């Protein structure tokens, strides 16, 4: 693969640069204010080691001896903390610790933790950027193939693996040079017109969601990430191919182990009342050379189909193209056709990296406490 190819690919897919920073199943800034740093020294009263976040409850003494306030300090998920060397028993109830972080926007006694200093002086930190970058591919290998010659999008027999680390954090129209954070929050709101050809109401709603720091994101309430968002959600997705049954499954990890079924048996898309709107819609597909082309319709309006809060309607149909130019790379391109929200069809996409590990287990519902505290600006 030549350097020129990748340059063209990068431009063609839209250079939506996402600073890789710690993020969760929601935009952290909608809940915590980085401009309000807080240092809490106290005694650990509880530790919750669960998804989507690890919580440390700290009893912080006040000015009076009998005046104790319990603070709830939120850290990343166990999956991310493990990458930074944390273990399930990192702190003990009764241990005196110091936590540094940012205060909650809603005034509650909660903080987004950044650093935890244990009784013995050991310092634990939120995973650094470097710890969250994709693992480097060990070797260059050619595209694996199914017995029928088509590219294999899942793991080869006897191996494990999944796709993650998308090169874009949100879907934007091809060639748009837009900077966002890891949840699709624009660095510059004036870039909104470059994101997609919005209808006026859709642009207004998109800007509202951006200005309120994505506080109403349905995924923060653990609802499924339909559409392209399934392929940009944290912790990646697996592909289960069943050529003998002419179907394929896309299985989310960060999307709460939801799966999406795609029929490859030549059936037609249903229309009108024949389809009940769902989060993942109804998908059919076929191979065009080495590219798997999917057509999907039948989406409901209860989710955001990409990070960043781009609206859609039930009129949304997607054409998605998947190709695997080499063993470690998946190229994803999508054309959005939604005459209810956009003035014309538009396209975007990104690439993903192969991770030769088992798909991690992640259930947002396990201990989701965020939505009621996400107040935005």
């Amino acid at each position: 693969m030549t350097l020129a190819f990748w340059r063209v690919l990068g431009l063609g897919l839209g250079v939506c640069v996402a600073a890789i920073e710690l993020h969760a199943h929601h935009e952290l800034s909608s809940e915590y204010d980085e401009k309000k740093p807080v240092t809490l020294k106290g005694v650990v009263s509880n530790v919750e080691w669960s998804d989507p976040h690890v919580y440390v409850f700290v009893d912080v003494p006040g000015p009076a001896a009998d005046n104790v306030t319990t603070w709830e300090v939120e850290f990343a998920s166990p999956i991310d903390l493990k990458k930074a060397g944390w273990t399930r028993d990192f702190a003990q109830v009764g241990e005196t610790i110091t936590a540094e972080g940012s205060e909650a926007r809603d005034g509650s006694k909660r903080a987004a933790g950044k650093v935890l200093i244990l009784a013995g002086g050991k310092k634990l930190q939120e995973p650094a950027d470097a710890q969250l970058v994709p693992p480097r591919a060990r070797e260059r290998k050619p595209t694996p193939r199914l017995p029928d010659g088509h590219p294999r999008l899942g793991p080869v027999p006897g191996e494990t693996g999944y796709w993650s680390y998308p090169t874009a954090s949100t879907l934007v129209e091809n060639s748009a040079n837009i900077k966002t954070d890891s949840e699709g929050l624009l660095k510059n709101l004036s870039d909104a017109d470059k994101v997609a050809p919005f209808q006026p109401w859709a642009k207004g709603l998109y800007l509202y969601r951006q200005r309120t720091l994505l506080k109403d994101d349905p995924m923060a309430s653990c609802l499924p990430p339909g559409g392209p968002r399934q392929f940009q959600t944290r912790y990646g997705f697996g592909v289960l191919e069943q050529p003998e049954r002419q179907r394929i499954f896309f299985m989310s990890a960060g999307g709460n182990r939801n799966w999406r079924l795609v029929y490859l048996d030549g059936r037609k898309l249903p229309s009108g009342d024949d389809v009940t709107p769902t989060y993942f819609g109804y998908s059919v597909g076929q191979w065009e050379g080495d590219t798997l082309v999917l057509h999907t319709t039948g989406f409901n309006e209860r989710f955001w189909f990409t990070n960043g809060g781009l609206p859609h309607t039930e009129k949304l149909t997607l054409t998605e193209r998947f190709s695997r130019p080499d063993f470690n790379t998946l190229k994803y391109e999508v054309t959005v056709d939604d005459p209810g929200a956009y003035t014309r069809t538009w396209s975007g996409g990104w690439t993903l990296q192969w991770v030769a590990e088992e798909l991690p287990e992640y259930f947002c519902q396990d201990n989701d406490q965020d939505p009621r505290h996400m107040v935005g600006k």
Partner: protein
Amino acid sequence: MKIALFLACVLGCAAALPAQEGHPLTGSWHGEWHTASEKHPLLFYMKWNSPNVEGTINPGPHAMPLKVATLDATNWTVHFEADGKDQAGNPVHIVADGKLENIGSYNRTITGTWTEGAIKGDFKLTRD
């Protein structure tokens, strides 16, 4: 106790309702318009069918199709017009202007002024 349990269940279920994330006016809305001396219940059903919002006021035997329903997403103001009949059965033109609030919530609201013929009042709608 049973009532308390029932209410807890209802409130819990309401809190877990998935939002409607498409066009902000789409859906069923209920509320009332009122003057200093009168209150009138309202039920709106609206659906975005690009490029228009279509809908009905008080679906049923006294339904009034929305002739005009617009949303200005730069300031979230709405404008409705409909023709119906008043309580005496006389034709009446309705004009309502309001503002959409709490947009990201399933139970978003519209509040504003309601004019029905020569009568002026205020209205509030909450999305069901």
